[in-house]
């Protein structure tokens, strides 16, 4: 069974269509790049998968079910912003995840935090932007989820932090899980992707494996993206 399935999925904000008639299937065990320029509908798709938005028409299924409490228990989501309350300490954030997510591996999270040299008593608000993003990524990837939805995980961080984030993603997701990474920084993520989905104005333009793109088109994903989305 596919882990994520969209059937004629559409979402409009008033008169403006953010997604229109998206048909998409993602299988477990794949790292998928959700690529497209700003405003192409990447974040909307991820929000729909998380149940933060409801579709205007069509449906989105996670592991065969509509977004619900049950699907939230198997989806690990990294939003494109800092969502941990500033007053919380890192230890309290670990408690929070541990209390609500049965698949949270506290030991793994603590080990990763220790490697970063973070003090567990430190408040989230005292962390730098980069450290906050790393902490949030560690919490997200410390779950043994079936689907990881990472919205712009490397946006707005320095190259060294990007490498750290990508290493963390690759070394922590389970083989049976799917990872969807939404980004427009293609060159940085290309090395870790199995498949790519190109979104343009709310529609899927292309859904192919990275290998196919390289073998059949003789191009890197970054080159193909620049070609397809040339202004």
């Amino acid at each position, binding site marked *: 069974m596919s882990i994520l399935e969209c059937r004629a999925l559409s979402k409009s904000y008033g008169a403006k269509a953010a997604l229109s008639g998206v048909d998409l299937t993602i299988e477990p065990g794949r790292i998928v790049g959700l690529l497209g320029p700003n405003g192409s509908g990447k974040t909307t798709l991820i*929000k729909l998968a998380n*149940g933060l938005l409801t579709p205007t028409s069509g449906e989105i299924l996670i592991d065969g079910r509509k977004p619900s*409490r049950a699907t939230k228990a198997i989806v690990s989501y990294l939003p494109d912003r800092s969502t941990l309350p500033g007053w919380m300490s890192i230890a309290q954030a670990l408690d929070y995840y541990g*209390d609500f997510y049965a698949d949270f591996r506290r030991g793994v999270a603590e080990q990763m935090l220790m490697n970063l040299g973070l003090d567990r008593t430190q408040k989230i608000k005292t962390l730098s932007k980069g450290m906050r993003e790393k902490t949030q990524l560690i919490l997200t990837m410390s779950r043994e989820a079936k689907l990881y939805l990472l919205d712009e995980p490397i946006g707005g961080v320095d190259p060294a932090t990007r490498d750290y984030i990508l290493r963390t993603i690759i070394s922590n997701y389970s083989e049976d899980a799917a990872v969807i990474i939404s980004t427009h920084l293609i060159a940085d993520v290309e090395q870790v992707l199995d498949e790519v989905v190109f979104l343009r104005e709310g529609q899927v333009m292309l859904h192919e494996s990275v290998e196919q793109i390289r073998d059949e088109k003789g191009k890197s994903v970054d080159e193909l993206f620049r070609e397809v989305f040339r202004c």
Partner: protein
Amino acid sequence: MLSKLIKHEFRATGRIMWPVFLGMLALTALMRFSQLLLNGGHIHWLLQLIGVLLVIGFVLGLFALAFAPLVLSACRWRDHVLKDEGYLTLTLPVSLHQLLISKLIVSAVWYAAAFIVGLFSLLIAASGWSAFQYAPDLFSDVFTAFFGMDVSLRGHALLIVFELFCNFVFAVSAAELVVYAAYSIGYSFNKHKELWTVILILVFFELAQFTAIAMIGLFIQTFPDTWISLDASNVPTGIELLLLWGMLGELLFCVIGYAVTWFFTTKKLNLE
């Protein structure tokens, strides 16, 4: 999951409420101390000014105490659900019903605590610490009076206490839910979210006042005998009916507030 939500809600709100309670008690003690000094004869004008300011601060503190749980709960709903934290909160494997109920329970507990702290503060302000030595006598007097009552009156008294308790819970919940509803609608707009929220809060509370007046009128019309021939025999029944009527009104606002909040948070959520 409800118990975990409650635990984390207490953790998040306790860091504000405990200092508020401690601050209020400290302010009361200071005010009482200054009053004792001021009663002691000729006092420097500066100390007198400080004493007056402490009394004003005490009164303002009581008002703040009365509104603190509601204000905190409203801000918490905004920050925890409708702003960036909402990305985390609304993707937890819990239902919105559990989330709402946890917030209402925690808020009701803080209201009860604020009521007790307010009562303590008033007692200290009115008669000082020495008044507390009479507290056990007060309780024993209440018990003696209760068991000295006629059996039928005892039933009425218990029912009235129960209804007062329910009224307290429903009133607190209705106020919270109306504010949550205003926030949920206000934050569904793309612009001027806070302004919309403030306008909606004012409109909703105005509507609540009109409804309360209409319900009182309806009550008098529905049960005219209770009030026209008011005598000792039907006073308890009249109070019970009035409290029940009040509860119905509060429940109505709870249901409307809950439904609006639920609808706008699930169907019209507009996280940035």
